[in-house]
């Protein structure tokens, strides 16, 4: 009995220390985001003050007004949204079918294909920008959103298929046989049984493709060269950021506008994401 008490006494301060440090680390990790939002709401004079305070007494929307007043910021926002959403939907669909194909069917070159998915992830996107640039030019796709959507689908697929494979694998094959015995057709099994079962995995992979498309800076910078009406958010953000004299209020407000959708998306799928990643690595 007494041993138990001692044990507990020793444990308690440790856990307390662990919890305090967890909270502290959480604060440190969240600080940049907090500072971003705070600076976005600050009146101009306060940002440029040499005594930054971690709060503000009179929040103002000036910076946001400046951001949305900038030519067609809303349009850039929409462009980004269109690109990200089309990439997510199309790549999720293809990844689902492809992952099913490589786990459920044995065919020639299957292993080769799998290795290729892995190798494809290694390819430095930045290097491929050069040939892709010429490819898009030849297709007449430069300065269109298609020039952003297509490469993003291509680059998010290998990772998505690679991750989804684990989920499809986890569905017992007996289930498939049972479905066929009950008279379900192949497509019916695919969409009404398999699809809902691997949905958490699809969500997890979609997060990755959404983020990579939404955050993309490189393709937007390289492929949208002259027609600024097709520009996306990261490019708009840099309008405010001039290395010599950055408009920090504007940058922070634009950053906030750009980060919020991703945050919302993340919070919505948070639970599925954690279980999704757990499922993917368990196999």
């Amino acid at each position, binding site marked *: 009995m007494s041993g138990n008490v001692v044990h507990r006494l020793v444990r308690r301060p440790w856990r307390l220390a*662990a919890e305090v440090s967890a909270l502290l680390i959480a604060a440190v990790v969240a600080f940049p985001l907090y*500072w971003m939002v705070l600076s976005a709401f600050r009146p101009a004079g306060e940002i440029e003050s040499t005594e930054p305070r971690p709060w503000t007494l009179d929040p103002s929307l000036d910076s946001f007004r400046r951001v949305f007043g900038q030519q067609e910021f809303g349009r850039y926002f929409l462009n980004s949204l269109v690109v990200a959403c089309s990439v997510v939907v199309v790549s999720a669909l293809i990844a689902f079918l492809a992952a099913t194909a490589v786990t459920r069917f044995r065919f020639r070159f299957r292993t080769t294909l799998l290795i290729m998915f892995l190798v494809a992830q290694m*390819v430095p996107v*930045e*290097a*491929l*920008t050069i*040939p892709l640039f010429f490819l898009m030019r030849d297709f007449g796709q430069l300065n269109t959103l298609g020039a952003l959507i297509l490469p993003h689908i291509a680059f998010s697929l290998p990772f998505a298929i690679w991750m989804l494979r684990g989920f499809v694998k986890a569905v017992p094959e007996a289930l498939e046989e049972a479905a066929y015995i009950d008279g379900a057709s192949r497509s019916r099994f695919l969409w009404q049984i398999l699809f809902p079962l691997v949905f958490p995995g699809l969500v997890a992979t979609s997060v990755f493709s959404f983020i990579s498309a939404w955050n993309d*800076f490189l393709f937007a910078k390289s492929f949208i060269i002259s027609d600024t009406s097709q520009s996306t958010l990261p490019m708009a953000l840099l309008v405010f950021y001039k290395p010599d004299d950055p408009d920090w209020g504007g940058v922070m407000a634009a950053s906030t506008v750009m980060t919020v959708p991703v945050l919302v998306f993340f919070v919505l799928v948070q639970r599925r994401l954690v279980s999704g990643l757990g499922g993917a690595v*368990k196999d």
Partner: protein
Amino acid sequence: MVLGGLLVYPVYQLGLISVFHYTQAQVSGGEPTTFEGFGNYREIFSDRQFWQVLLATVLFAAACVVSTLTVGCALAVLLTRVRALPRLALMLAALGAWATPAVTGSTVWLFLFDPDFGPVNRVLGLGDHSWTYGRLSAFLLVLLEVVWCSFPFVMVTVYAGIRAVPAEVLEAAALDGASQLRIWRSVLAPMLRPILVVVTIQSVIWDFKVFTQIYVMTNGGGIAGQNLTLNVYAYQQAFASSQYSRGSAIGVVMLLILLAVTLAYLRLLRRQGEEL
């Protein structure tokens, strides 16, 4: 297959461009393209700056991977030690950092470390010390941002993996008097090895290819290119100096390096007896 084409064809073209002489004149059709063989490669291999950049890239990526993995794993273990509320706080903060786009993350960190208006210099009492001026401190700043936005992936994945380890195993180890560090080293790490391998490889791939952070935070490679990494270098060669073929050659070198890493990874997987 069509999308496979969208990946394979550019790789092929990349190789093709890298063996030609391809600059602005050829792009606009002013001059015919000439075959150069390995001339571009010879050129970059005899270029002092290339080796410098390569070394910087490898060291920078290694530092990023090690710090990310250390922080991620340590916090994953910490997550299992605390009750629900601190865990939720840390999880949400990490998800926030993870969700932050690379461009905004870069600008926010730049602002935090701004010599004139940033809070960090005030708190540390550094006056108007400029972080992006020195080579090492600029790299350090980028490293901090990279670790900040990439440790959550490691943390969440490893945490999910630890949760999958049966509690009895850990209890048994604790009853046998193993210390925390010992439990991690002798029980958790071996059980989590497949996960750790995946996470490490992903980190290597990502950190080797850091582009946006370097590009934005050091304004395209730092003063006189002191903060260039391979892919920013390739990009600058191609799009800023219109040396498309030299940029492609650098890209091919990068591809080969990462390919070697992948093959090592596959060998490792196979030795563990895992089927693809």
